[in-house]
């Protein structure tokens, strides 16, 4: 993985697999250059045993193969900057879900660039147009956000968020927010 946005694309799919109805992805960078990535979902959550092993590359819930690299790679990406990865999860009925918090020192020479986050968000939404995503990317100088719920209110139930026309609009909507920074 050469971009953090690729890790985000990979790991956020776990939330989709967990049956989430809402996935929140946020990037928050403070003035000192520390960036916090949070991915929170209301999916089925993980057992204590799974949670303990989840960043072990040779642990996976898949039955077809023995290796699961998504979270280990994200953990590596945080730790090589001096940051960390924390995951909390609950399987309690009514309040189940998983929250992942990854911290990066973006001033570190070993911090990967975020890369094409717009593609990541658009592809995630196109891949699961039926569930809701909330995305935000906030730094001291600008704020970017997209909430599929708001788009759905405008579009009604008939038009899928995966439609090429909607995807095109979404991409430009995000691009404009990124380029209009002060």
């Amino acid at each position, binding site marked *: *993985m050469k971009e953090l946005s*690729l890790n985000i*694309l*990979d790991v956020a*799919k776990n939330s989709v697999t967990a049956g989430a109805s809402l996935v929140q992805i946020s990037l928050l960078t403070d003035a000192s250059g520390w960036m916090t990535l949070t991915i929170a979902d209301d999916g089925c959550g993980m057992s204590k045993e799974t949670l303990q092993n989840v960043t072990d590359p040779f642990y996976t819930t898949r039955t*077809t*193969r023995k290796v*699961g*690299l*998504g979270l280990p*790679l994200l953990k590596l990406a945080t730790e090589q900057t001096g940051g960390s990865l924390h995951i909390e999860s609950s399987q309690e009925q009514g309040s189940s879900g998983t929250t992942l918090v990854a911290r990066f020192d973006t001033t570190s020479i070993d911090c990967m660039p975020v890369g*094409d986050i717009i*593609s*990541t968000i658009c*592809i995630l939404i*196109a*891949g699961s147009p039926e569930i809701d995503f909330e995305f935000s990317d906030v730094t001291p100088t600008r704020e970017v956000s997209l909430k599929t719920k*708001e*788009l759905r209110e*405008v*579009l*009604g139930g*008939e*038009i899928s968020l995966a*439609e*090429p*026309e*909607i*995807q*095109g*609009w979404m991409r*430009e*909507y995000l691009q*404009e927010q990124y380029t*209009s920074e002060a």
Partner: protein
Amino acid sequence: MKSLAELAAIREKMQSKVALREGEASLRVVVGMATCGIAAGARPVLNAFVDGVNNANLTDKVTVTQTGCIGICQYEPVVEVFEEGKDKVTYVKLDAQKAAEIVEKHLKGGNVVTEYTIGAYKKD
């Protein structure tokens, strides 16, 4: 500035079109988007297929979707093309440029780009 009002206008334009489109796509392009695919460069490949299908006005005929790991990680980025009544075509080691070529020759022209298929790759 892009606004939600503009989205409402797109909606008006699309409503009739979407009704026509239901269930008509006969070609399905499936891009492997698990850790292995993403790390190997599947994201630009997926983008290239989506853009290519749009630009060639093939959206009525072709749908582009994502899937997980299909078990041949060493050949990623892997793309499978399903067409009714035909054998599945598996393309391997793709990039955005090869994807654009497949849109033009295979999805639009109906001719499989044999040199990018798994069969041709294994022979080398």
